[in-house]
């Protein structure tokens, strides 16, 4: 009988000559009558090979297009004890799994040590272009070798490559057999409807997920663990505060709207709520928002209600009173390094335009993004305004003050924003200000958010 053969085909594995006796042992393989072969999702590669070895079944493997590769870490820095524990936990978990640590706790450094340990070509997945460039710099610094970039117009594969999730979804079907280690930074993104295919289409037997918050509102973290491995190590922000993270405090400022804004707000909110009531829309359900979008587009009254919804939201996000508070806080923290966060780009640019400050959004072109970030790091710019692009991962250790003008209300977002100012520096005391419009829905959202442990222990 011909030997069993395994090959990689567009994010899947093609298996030829699979003995009947073995077919039931490999639960993820199916007969594909389009190609008259057996087929499996690429991420089951490790499982299939393990099964074949367990059954002493000879096989020809042309799927795997990587070999052992030595990566020598040029920077000899000792890990903190908790970092060593995380590394040991990942090894003990069969070189798979998620490590959950707060922002600033050195997740990237753990990844560097694991790349050097694992000695396999490595593909690092990140959610944003900014993070892609940040990883690129870190990898170059540690390994002193060519680092590939795949995403944001770049298409270069190297044994160490950084890609965006979005790009990996598109291209993993072509290169998913070239890497032995897959790292998923901010891996809570991975279980998304499309992003998961970046992991499904790869054969990488060794997988590492990094995040501060693996839990998802939709409960899909189980999908993350299925694709990357169980959460093998976890530490919370309060366990590391003052030790490896900076001391911090959270200050909530309830802001009164100006009278004219208050009248406008109340009127718009009433119009919006009246429509919800009339159209029998319950915004508390998971379909509430979509139903509102749909029904409001069906009539003139609905369109007025939708405009009213936007108006009241915009007023609570960016009232003139909030801008006055931004001015006060900027003045109070002269000499500090301040990050100002907003929910939307419009508000970010309003603040940038009013106070003549650099604004970083997804609309900022790459060259200027780098100039703003580098300027902030080296002190040329002491204040940076941003909507969401700095929520995750991007390293700005010099920041010690965050002003949250508006946000989505999610706990994850606030913990991530807090994380931006927690990187330890000698004598650093971090402060996070939240500006909340009084007597608006923002107040309720804030109360709910404050139940998170990052707030409770302070």
């Amino acid at each position: 009988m011909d030997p069993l053969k395994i090959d990689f085909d567009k994010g899947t594995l093609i298996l030829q000559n699979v003995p009947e006796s073995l077919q039931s042992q490999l639960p993820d393989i199916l007969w594909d009558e389009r190609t008259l072969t057996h087929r499996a999702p690429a991420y089951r590669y490790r499982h299939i090979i393990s099964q074949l070895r367990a059954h002493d079944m000879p096989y020809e493997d042309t799927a795997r297009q990587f070999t052992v590769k030595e990566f020598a870490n040029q920077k000899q820095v000792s890990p903190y004890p908790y970092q060593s524990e995380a590394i040991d936990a990942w090894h003990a978990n069969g070189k798979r799994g998620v490590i959950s640590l707060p922002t600033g706790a050195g997740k990237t450094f753990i990844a560097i040590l694991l790349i050097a340990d694992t000695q396999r070509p490595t593909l690092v997945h990140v959610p944003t272009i900014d993070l892609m460039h940040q990883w690129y710099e870190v990898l170059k610094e540690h390994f002193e070798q060519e680092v590939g970039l795949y995403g944001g117009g770049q298409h270069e594969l190297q044994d160490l490559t950084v890609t965006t999730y979005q790009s990996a979804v598109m291209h993993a079907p072509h290169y998913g057999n070239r890497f032995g280690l897959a790292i998923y930074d901010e891996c809570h993104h991975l279980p998304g409807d499309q992003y998961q295919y970046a992991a499904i289409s790869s054969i990488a037997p060794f997988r590492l997920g990094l995040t501060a918050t693996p839990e998802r509102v939709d409960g899909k973290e189980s999908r993350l663990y299925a694709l990357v491995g169980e959460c093998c190590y976890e530490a919370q922000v309060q366990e590391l505060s003052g030790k490896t993270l900076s001391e911090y405090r959270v200050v909530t400022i309830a802001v009164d709207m100006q009278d004219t804004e208050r009248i406008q707000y109340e009127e718009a909110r009433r119009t919006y709520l009246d429509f919800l009531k009339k159209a029998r829309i319950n915004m508390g359900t998971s379909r509430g928002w979509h139903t509102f979008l749909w029904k409001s587009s069906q009539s003139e009254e609905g369109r007025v209600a939708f405009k009213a919804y936007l108006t009241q939201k915009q007023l609570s996000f960016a009232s003139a009173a909030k801008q006055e508070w931004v001015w006060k806080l900027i003045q109070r923290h002269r000499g500090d390094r301040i990050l100002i966060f907003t929910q939307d780009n419009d508000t970010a640019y309003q603040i940038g335009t009013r106070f003549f400050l650099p604004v970083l959004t997804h609309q900022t072109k790459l060259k200027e993004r780098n100039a703003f970030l580098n300027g902030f790091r080296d002190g040329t710019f002491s204040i940076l305004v941003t909507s969401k692009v700095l929520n995750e991962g991007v390293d700005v250790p010099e920041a010690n003050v965050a002003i949250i003008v508006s946000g989505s209300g999610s706990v994850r977002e606030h913990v991530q924003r807090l994380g931006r100012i927690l990187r330890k520096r000698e004598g650093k005391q971090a402060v996070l200000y939240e500006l909340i419009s009084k007597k608006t829905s923002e107040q309720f959202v804030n109360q709910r958010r404050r139940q998170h442990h990052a707030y409770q222990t302070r």
Partner: protein
Amino acid sequence: MLTKDLLRYKIREGQIYPQFVKPTDSQLLSVSDQLITVFEASPNTQRSTLLETSKHIIDSTPDNVIVKRGLEKLLLDRTEFDTAPNEELIAFRQNLFTETSRLLSQDMFSNYEEYLQKVSQIAGVESQSEKGELGDRLYADLPNCQPVLSFKTLSAQHLLHRYNTAQVQGLLLHCNSLTLNLSESMTAELRQLFKYLRFNQLLSTIRKKKIGNDDCFQITVDGPLNLFYKTKRYGMNLANFFVAVLHQPKWEITAEIQFRNKRSSRLYLNESCGIKPISQQFLAYIPEDIQLFQDMLHNKTDDWQIHPGSQFLPLPGDFYCFPDYQLIHTSGIEVWIELFHPWHQGHLLARLNTLGAQTGTPLIIGVSKELQKQSIIAEAMETSGHFSKFGFTFRDIPTMGALLPILNSLVDIDR
């Protein structure tokens, strides 16, 4: 393409019905004309100006708002904006922010106006009106301010046909596979359909089927991962593929559409839906590769005529393929050629498996040398009885040196 919020459809008893517009609807034709006129006049104006003007047209009448926004979206897809960075402005910002940062780090201001005064001085702005404009000028290169470079115009009626096509494409983005029934015919349109299929890297199984009294070919189109997941991974490819379906004289498609967190519904459409093809069809046009192939063949022999593939070829078992070329010898012998490029690995393995050791199918297999580099492919080629008789390899395009010996052997066998 239309985004989900711009799609119009109804779901009844598990069936999804796209809400097409009438391409002869005088009101919609008039609105389309107005919008096209605005877009035609848009080069050199800012995106925000263009959008404000088109919004004015959309809002001028209360009905069909979603349709009008959909039309606007399709016109925007045909508009090119100047997205190049404004270096002068970037430098201005860099300098100004360096100064404002210094001011805010060092100085205490009694109020905001004092700060504004200082910034205006630094920027060299003196008059009151210029001070007001300084902020506006700061981010004057945001997408809303980008100027229009060009717009690819079209007729109002064509826009409405495009809109109907986009309604179907928008639904297909949310489907995991589709089944296409085509009447048995020998048309050049089919060739284009299979080109689209391969170009979009989709997999297909072709079966012959009887529908009513008619013989037809049933083509199931999806991607490799569909075997395991109801994935919409290939939705975009399927949506693009639909454009080629519209060129077929008689067709019907069935697709399962599933929006996020919703039950799936079945989409059924056939040629009677009245959507006209939106892409150009070059039936009289002889593709460059065919022309080159023809010239090379004529330089070597007058005995063979080459034509683009235009019909299904039965394979062993219940399978069919759609070859790239057909060759006809002066004696009447007919033979077909199917080419496999580097991205056709799965297709080639399937073909060699289907053909097995049989040599009765008059199908010549051409394999790219790049594809042959893969050991699994090289081995499959070596062990294929069919390939040993009817196979050859090529670098960029097939050469006569590799093909003619096979063609001659066929004539010899026949004698």
